């Protein structure tokens, strides 16, 4: 049971970041290959708020999210303002994540706060001690709330503007969509969610290390959205869980995971460029649609 709980928690943390990616990449069409950086910001900030300032769980998570979100605006503003094409924004996020990882690797302490550099930030409060609920239940609860809120966002007028930008940026602007503001908003929401995932991860382990947030994790997050499907929340949700759970359950084959990833990437790109569940909205209909579509196309 403990094993299953661990998988639940890990995939939950992953799911939060993937939801963020879904908003940014799946809905707004902006690619980030450094989203682990926002998780790292959330993990360290959450750790600082909880350990050094003794905050409770909810304010810790919100604080971590806000911090990461605000930093993300600092990256997004110059990138979007100078009308860098999408791929340059992706490079900017990559640079940010790597720079952050190296910084964290080499900063041993800020004042009295002992971040520990490459050894990692230790002795953080544990999730199970921070609330009266079991830790896996907290993660599931946070995921459900985040899923609901994100669903509300993408179906709101703000979310529609994001979708319009992905489908035709110039037309969206002509129809009155403020590109800069909408993109920054999507980035903020996605960094916020990723940070909450990172913070929960920190509280689960009670310890974090910069190497948790390498490029590998960033590409896992992107992969979840590309596989899961653009303009869909439910698709990335499923793949986010699979991406954590499947290698864990088939641990002996875990080393072959990258070969499988590579193959899957190519197959998905060729046969379903919109992803497995592209354009599938989260509502009750997807269950029946899933049922009908699965045997027909025989995917996965």
């Amino acid at each position, binding site marked *: 049971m403990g094993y299953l709980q661990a998988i639940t928690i890990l995939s939950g943390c992953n799911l939060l970041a993937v939801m963020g990616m879904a908003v940014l990449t799946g809905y707004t069409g902006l690619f980030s290959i450094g989203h682990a950086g926002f998780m790292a910001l959330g993990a360290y900030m959450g750790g600082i708020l909880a350990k050094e300032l003794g905050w409770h769980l909810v304010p810790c998570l919100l604080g971590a999210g806000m911090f990461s979100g605000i930093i993300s605006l600092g990256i997004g503003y110059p990138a979007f303002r100078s009308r860098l094409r999408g791929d340059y924004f992706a490079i900017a996020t990559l640079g940010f994540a790597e720079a952050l990882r190296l910084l964290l690797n080499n900063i041993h302490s800020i004042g009295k706060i002992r971040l520990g550099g490459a050894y990692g930030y230790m002795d953080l409060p544990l999730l199970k001690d921070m609330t009266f609920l079991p830790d896996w239940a907290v993660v599931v609860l946070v995921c459900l709330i985040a899923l609901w809120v994100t669903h*509300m966002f993408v179906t709101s007028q703000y*979310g*529609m503007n994001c979708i319009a930008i992905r489908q035709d940026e110039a*037309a969206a602007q002509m*129809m*009155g969509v403020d590109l800069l503001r909408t993109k920054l908003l999507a980035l903020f929401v996605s960094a916020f969610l990723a940070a909450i995932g990172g913070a929960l991860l920190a509280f689960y382990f009670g310890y974090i290390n910069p190497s948790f947030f390498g490029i590998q994790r960033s590409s896992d997050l992107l992969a979840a959205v590309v596989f899961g499907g653009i303009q869909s929340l439910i698709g990335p949700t499923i793949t986010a869980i699979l991406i954590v759970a499947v290698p864990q359950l088939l641990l002996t084959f875990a080393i072959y995971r990258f070969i499988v990833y590579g193959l899957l990437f190519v197959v998905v790109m060729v046969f379903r460029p919109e992803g497995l569940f592209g354009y599938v909205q989260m509502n009750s209909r997807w269950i029946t649609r899933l049922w009908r579509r699965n045997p027909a196309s025989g995917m996965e």
Partner: protein
Amino acid sequence: MDSQTPSSTPILELRDLTVDFGGVRAVNSFNMAVAPGELVGLIGPNGAGKTTVFNLITNAYHATSGQILMEGKNLRGLSPDRLCHRGISRTFQNIRLFPFMTAYENVELSIHSAPQYSLFEAFVRLPRARRKQQESRARAHQLLETVGLEKFAHARAGSLPYGLQRRLEIARAMAASPRILLLDEPAAGMNEDECKDLVNLIRQIHESQGYTIIMIEHHMAVVMDLCRRSRIYVMQLGANLATGGPEQIQNDPQVIKAYLGERKNVH
């Protein structure tokens, strides 16, 4: 509507509008003054710079020099989304709908491109956000009905036939509640019957909504019919060639030489 009086304050005025692309002067000291509520045609041979003028008005291209005035106020330098909120809306020559949205969503997006409720209200769907969304839903359906697309409200825009996509573009442009509507070849690729329907549609929305409309069009029948009580601007090589009512234009020797003469040989 039939304002032959350029003396009233123009709602849109272009003064010596010029743009260079590298060494090519695509628009050369172009002048235009449109009175409120007027329906003006903009014609000219291929490559004359008609669409470029639209792109300059909406600031998709930045003008090299000259002035773009809306009711006397300078519009140059405002971003396209700001211009849209100021009341300038357009359709595109090569249709640019949001192909994976439904027809309804295309129109609805344009109604609320500046969201009318706060982010927090969006997250928790407070009653106000829900009411705003209902309002825009009603208006979107009404607009779809205006252009005769109510049956296709939930069809994916990209899957609609060409003619309907053009109508949907008009509905989407109208959804932004413009005061000036720029139509870029609304009748392109349409047969004669479809053209007649389109003329009726444009006349109807012009008369019922009181828009100022500037229309680029190659179908002479469409332009001459719609602009019969107003004016047509003729462009050649980026500059003004002639301006006047349909009769006047059709009998202008320069226009015949540059434009209609060639077409007469074709037909």
